[in-house]
């Protein structure tokens, strides 16, 4: 078993990941990922909460599965210690540049379909409420983005649990901002906004202010 799977994470790095994913480099306000559902689903708070929870769940699962795919299918055997195809391609060749995007998106599409099936059975009310937005999680930049971010190997190689937790808190950060935004937009609906700015434009201006506020968290991680 390679070292990466058995390494236990210190509590310090746990908090570091949590704070950096949720506050310092928030997925929506800092990294510009997940903007389409951010604008589309935040008209009402209950749909924002449901969407946030579904996305967090998918992001966590996607982080785990793509970590496994990256380390044991894509990376050459000489770097990760084990590659399923080492027999065919040798131990030095990397499949990363060829298969990374395609395999990740396959994994995510399957996971989203799975989540849809489970939700339809266990929480049908939430399933109905989210409607078309559930299959749209597949095209959510945040999900693919977190998978890619976990596996760039710079500045450091992430362990399995670090990747999973990073995915989870990325989703939490996404959900936090969605809830904040939906609260703001519900109030904006009855405000005297100029006609041209009603709806999406004024929502973006408010996002700008929120992003400005979140840059204040920049010094939290030393």
């Amino acid at each position, binding site marked *: 078993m390679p070292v990466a799977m058995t390494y236990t994470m210190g509590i310090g790095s746990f908090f570091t990941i949590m704070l950096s994913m949720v506050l310092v480099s928030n997925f929506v306000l800092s990294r*510009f990922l997940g903007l389409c559902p951010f604008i589309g689903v935040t008209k009402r708070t209950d749909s924002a909460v449901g969407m946030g929870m579904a996305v967090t769940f998918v992001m966590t699962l996607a982080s785990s599965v793509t970590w496994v795919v990256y380390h044991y299918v894509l990376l050459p055997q000489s770097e990760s210690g084990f590659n399923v195809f080492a027999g065919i391609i040798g131990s030095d060749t990397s499949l990363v540049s060829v298969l990374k995007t395609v395999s990740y998106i396959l994994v995510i599409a399957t996971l989203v379909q799975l989540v849809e099936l489970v939700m339809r059975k266990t929480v049908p009310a939430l399933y109905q409420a989210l409607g078309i937005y559930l299959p749209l999680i597949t095209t959510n930049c945040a999900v693919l983005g977190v998978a890619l971010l976990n596996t760039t190997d710079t500045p450091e190689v992430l362990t399995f649990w670090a990747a999973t937790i990073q995915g989870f808190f990325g989703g939490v950060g996404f959900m936090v901002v969605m809830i904040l935004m939906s609260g703001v937009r519900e109030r904006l609906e009855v405000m005297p906004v100029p006609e041209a700015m009603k709806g999406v*434009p004024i929502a973006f201006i408010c996002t*700008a202010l929120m992003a400005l506020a979140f840059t204040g968290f920049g010094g939290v991680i030393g």
Partner: protein
Amino acid sequence: MPEFVRQLVRSRRGRHERAAVWVLRELVRGAIKENPTFVLVLGLCPTLAVTVSVVNGFWMAVAATGVLISSNVIISGLRKFIPKEIRIPCFVIVIAGFVTITEMLMKAYLSDQINNALGIFIPLIVVNCIIFGRAEAYAYSHTVAESLVDGVGTGFGFMMALMLISGVRELTGSGTILGLKVWPSYRPAYIMVMAPGAFLVIGLFLGMFRALGARVAARRAVVSYEAPVTSKDAKAEG
């Protein structure tokens, strides 16, 4: 075939002129009436993230347009063979394939600086709503030629949008255009090249485009409604 193409065919213009007019109309449509960023509000993630400078915006638009055109053509060519039930995974695979090709080309031929600036947003073209949306809404139900021109038009619109946004952000946020300092004594507002500036610029542009579009629509629309008659109104024979 679209109606105006039929009209062009009936006219006495030459075949090449007709084709050129058709392409030009698609370009204008993609750029203004159905601009993917400002009107359809799709594909915002790369738009805001890479428009820190005009060069980055340009290469992003080139990459996305390349993927858009290629995937439109292939999906349109294969539309008779893709069953309706599994069309979404098929689109995804085709688009992902082209994105991988684009990724490799960019890593090979563009400088490290640009590649690092664009970062993960090149592979994220896979989930760009523009490409996915055009494949689903247009390429799956139109011929190869129409899909090709639609891809060109939409890509052109995306390029215009990215150039606009990155132009504004680079000018106000770094005081440069294409790397050249415009005004030596200008102290740049760094906020514009950071996240808040991006959201501010897109919000203002969206509002501006909506205002321009709404004024055009208002001139055309006539809102009329009837009111019930009371004893104080002028008597009219019904």
